């Protein structure tokens, strides 16, 4: 299993894995998830979805990283996908944001292919989708519960910068029973036998939160 480790302690750049999920706690106190991946030259790059149409390679937080317990070569296509998706995003500037996830993936051109009922991705499901593109199913999403009260608070926290249209879309998703997979749960899932079920992942989240709090200045 891929137990999360501090990059400060075990530098991802020095390890043989080509790609890993990275989890931080931002200055706002929320968890945020992304991917770090190796490239032909230079240090590992990052790719993470901040919000609607905001895919970024900039990452300025200290982080935990983990990768799935798979054959190491399985992670090489993850890095390939990151590079392809980023190049596609540079052309379009578009990547929709939405809560529910039922296995959306990217097609061979790096375009997001949503499934029925899906509106977009979150930072968490972006990571899940990229890994799924490489054939690595990290979570069994059908085991995740609906948590409308928590999700409503999450959407409220976006109100200071999100457009009314997007807020309305997210609230519609919550009303219709969309399931939100939280960033720390995805990171915890990497430490489980994959595809991880909710109960297994959730049990590890508190430890992860405590670990990340150690990184706070």
């Amino acid at each position: 299993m891929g137990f999360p480790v501090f990059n400060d302690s075990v530098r991802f750049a020095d390890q043989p894995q080509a790609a890993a999920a990275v989890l931080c706690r931002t200055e706002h106190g929320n968890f945020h998830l992304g991917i770090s991946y190796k490239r032909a030259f230079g240090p590992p790059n990052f790719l993470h979805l901040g919000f609607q149409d905001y895919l970024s390679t900039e990452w300025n937080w200290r982080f935990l990283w983990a990768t799935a317990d798979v054959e190491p070569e399985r992670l090489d296509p993850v890095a390939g996908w990151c590079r392809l998706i980023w190049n596609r995003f540079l052309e379009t500037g578009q990547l929709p944001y939405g809560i529910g996830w039922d296995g959306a993936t990217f097609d061979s051109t790096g375009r997001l292919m949503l499934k029925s009922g899906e509106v977009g991705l979150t930072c968490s499901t972006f990571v899940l989708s990229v890994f799924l593109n490489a054939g690595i199913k990290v979570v069994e999403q059908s085991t995740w519960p609906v948590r409308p009260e928590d999700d409503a608070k999450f959407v409220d926290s976006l109100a200071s910068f999100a457009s009314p249209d997007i807020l309305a879309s997210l609230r519609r998703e919550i009303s219709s029973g969309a399931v939100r997979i939280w960033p720390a749960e995805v990171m915890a899932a990497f430490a489980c036998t994959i595809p991880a079920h909710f109960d297994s992942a959730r049990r590890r989240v508190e430890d992860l939160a405590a670990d990340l709090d150690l990184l706070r200045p």
Partner: protein
Amino acid sequence: MNLFDLKRTPKPWTFLETPVISEQVQYRRKTGPEAQKLPKGGLTDFRSNASEATRWLEDVYSMCARGEKEAAIDVVFDQIERLLSGGEFEKCDSVLRAVDLQRLSVSLILSLLSVTLSASKMLPYRRVLTARTEAFFGRNEGAERAARLLNGLI
């Protein structure tokens, strides 16, 4: 840096941050004026002849032999993307048909299967390639590892 206050300023290419641009990186960019600056005798311009859509595989084999894994994966992803975004499924299928598994690393084979997975219905030879790969990995890597390598890609 505040995630939510950031103005999106995507860079034209991530590798421009890297001071040294290799042959392989130039290869990715050779569709523009940069194409005129490619080193002589090095890489193949597959676009100059549509019937030679598989020629770039030779470059991938060479990169594999030199251990340039990331650059080789980039070429595979870029070329397959170019074929599929142009609707050239037959050419893409011919690439899969032409692949010499012996000259590719495990990582490259998995990358090829991964990037063609979503288009598998349009690529009849992909099923043959997965069967060939299964047998190839089974012989060289053992049945258990072969199964772990291919899980989710078939």
